[in-house]
């Protein structure tokens, strides 16, 4: 056996171990786009909350019930758009790598992410029912961060650090009330854009 063959053998072993256990069709661009949607949504929410009654008081979240549905729809639009973008760009990337997106790793990734995600969704649903609007941004950041950390073992390790940053921001939002929207915008907007750019330069060039 020649040295070249040994190296080829080792690199094929390594490649198989990595490709079979890590989902790497996540695109950096979807992070950037998700961040832009979040910033746009937060900007829109800010103007809505600022205008009625001329109140500039950011701490009096939507006590006005007419603001509940618009804000809810904005949040849903950001969520759905981000997920669709992520899915479409991942499908595209998987196709260009000649891989099937629905494989054992992507299933494990979804399984790991879904428990904190659904727990968070129910938790936030209960907060909404109880009218505890001021803790929603904190809860969404914390549960999203937990989902990322849980999923990170099946994809790029960088996702874990993004998750930890989201958790810290969520706790911070709980600690200093009244800044939920701005911290939410940092977590879902700014951090996603930063993450997307880092991923692009680290893995896609």
């Amino acid at each position, binding site marked *: *056996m020649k*040295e070249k063959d*040994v*190296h080829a*053998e*080792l690199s*094929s*072993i*390594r490649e*198989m*171990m*990595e*490709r*079979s*256990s890590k989902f790497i069709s996540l695109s950096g661009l979807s992070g950037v786009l998700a961040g832009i949607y979040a910033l746009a949504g937060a900007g829109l929410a800010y103007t809505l909350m600022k205008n009625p009654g001329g109140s500039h008081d950011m701490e009096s979240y939507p006590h006005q019930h007419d603001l509940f549905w618009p804000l809810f729809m904005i949040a849903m639009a950001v969520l759905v758009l981000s997920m669709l973008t992520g899915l479409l760009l991942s499908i595209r990337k998987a196709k260009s790598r*000649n*891989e*099937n997106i629905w*494989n*054992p790793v992507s299933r494990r990734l979804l399984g790991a992410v879904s428990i904190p995600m659904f727990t968070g969704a129910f938790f936030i649903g209960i907060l909404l029912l109880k009218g505890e609007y001021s803790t929603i941004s904190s809860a969404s950041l914390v549960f999203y961060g937990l989902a990322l950390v849980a999923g990170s073992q099946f994809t790029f390790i960088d996702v874990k650090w993004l998750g930890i940053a989201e958790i810290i921001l969520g706790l911070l939002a709980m600690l200093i009330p009244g800044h939920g929207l701005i911290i939410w915008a940092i977590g879902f907007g700014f951090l996603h854009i930063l993450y997307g750019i880092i991923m692009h330069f680290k893995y896609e060039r």
Partner: protein
Amino acid sequence: MKYSLEHFDKAFENRIRLQIMSVLVANRSYDFNGIKDLLHVTDGNLASHIKALEKEEYLSISKSFIGRKPNTQYAVTKKGKDAFKKHLQALENLIKQQK
């Protein structure tokens, strides 16, 4: 130059078998189609290599149903893991010798 081949596992002479083992040691278990997609091999080809590895008792098979579809999961055995490690060690030694 001649190298010692005593630690080389005959079962791993074939690249596809080695790749199957690589997938299995990195994961708790893997299904047939998942391995097939990763390796880009045909059903028959993969099945024959899996059979060879099964004969060596390097992997274990568990069959179940997901809905109505049969699902076959493969996992590496203790024996298979040890053999894989030994093979990696042999490759490493080979590189050291050549230096």
